[in-house]
């Protein structure tokens, strides 16, 4: 497990979250993008639960 770089994963997940929020903000009139980005944001939340929440503990 020593080869897992949690700090880097955390940073990438948070970047991904910001990117998804940006796309969401741009897609109010574009259902095909907005509904898909909503699903992606739910998956990103699972990444947060598995990584970001834990790194904050360290």
């Amino acid at each position, binding site marked *: 497990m020593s080869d897992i770089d949690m700090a880097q994963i955390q940073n990438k997940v948070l970047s991904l979250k910001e990117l998804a929020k940006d796309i969401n903000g741009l897609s109010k009139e574009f259902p095909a993008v907005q509904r898909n980005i909503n699903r992606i944001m739910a998956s990103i939340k699972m990444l947060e639960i*598995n990584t970001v929440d834990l790194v904050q503990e360290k």
Partner: protein
Amino acid sequence: MKNRYWNPILETLPREELRALQIRKFKRIFEWAYENSRFHRSLYDAAGIKPEDIRSLDDIHAVPKVEKSMMRDIQRKDPFPYGDALCVPLEEVTEFRQTSGTTGQPVYQPDTWQDWEWWAECWSFILWAQGYRPSDRVFIPFGYNVFVAFWAGHYGAEKLGCEVVPGGVLDTKARILKIQELQATAMMATPTYVLGMADTARNKMGIDPKSLSINKITCAGEPGAGIPTTKKRIEEAWGAKVFDHAGATEIGAWSFECADQPHGMHVNEGLFLVEIEDLETGKIIEEPGKRGKMIITALDRQAQPCIRFDSKDIIEWDPEPCSCGRTFRLIKGGVVGRSDDITKVKGVLLAPSAIEEVVRGIEGLGDEFEVVVDKVGDVDRIALKVELMPGTENRREEIEGQLVDQLRIKTNLRYNLSFHGCETLPRYEVKAKRFKDLRKAH
């Protein structure tokens, strides 16, 4: 085992860090509910507790519990049909499920897509720990409907990368043939149904379930897979490893038996906070070896939060850590009963699961049985109906002797016993109703 953990960091987090994580996540979900649910805010305001008051485990113990009856009272009102505990706009709800209504009017459960992802995440921890891998072909003999049951198991298996075969509206024989045809390697069902499938395969189709390719079975919905004698019967019938799991519609999939089969289940303490409350004093039990009822919080579920929910499940902490290396605590023997199932018969406390353990432990008795409690005047009577397996009629006296002895040892009661032919007692596909207390009708 290589890649033993779904989340190698979380599942091996030192206990003190895990506890700190739980407290921080509890505070977050409490604040979410306080800000977004009229039901929760009024409950907490009445107790004088605000989000900033949550700093320690003791603070959490003081938060009011939520009973299923409270959820029933607020539902079927606006925002219809969920009422005041709904924390998101209705248009964000993507999933509807409901409880089975075993103990009264069903409770409705809304979930957002994020909550549904979370359900699949809960199941991913379970299935990965039980050895499911992308190479598995998973057969799900479940009537996909308004009950959550194995819906989330289906999505969890997909998330792992397994190939999932939905055995929805097929009858039992067709399901067995489909397992055979596709060489499925794993299956999820209630213990009652898994035993019933084995019985059908063997006695009605001439197929030995062991000859099929199923090598692991995940059971849920009833305590059976945690009862050693029932687990043994299923494992012997199918030639497969059987794993216990517990979850509930209002809670989530909160516990699992891992591949090491430690005679208990891990609580997923990364996603849930479990407290055990003493049935008599109401105090929280921290030490192992003492049974109480589970109070549980789902730490990340948002549409209709589950915060200090009184589940009525009876559990106890195991004193031993698991050989698998997870720091998630074990509950010994899984869920051993429900506080509303435990009843007094002739002045003796009786858990129906104890009768199951005895019946399933005696060779020559069938898998099914039925218990009927009633009252004559002021005196309780308890009757037990069992089935004799074909070819064991000449051993009836011996079997009866074992049954009487074991029942007396395990339950401290004497029963009016009756023996029936094989397959004459009712069969069940989902949750069995083997315990009938007729005293309540008097």
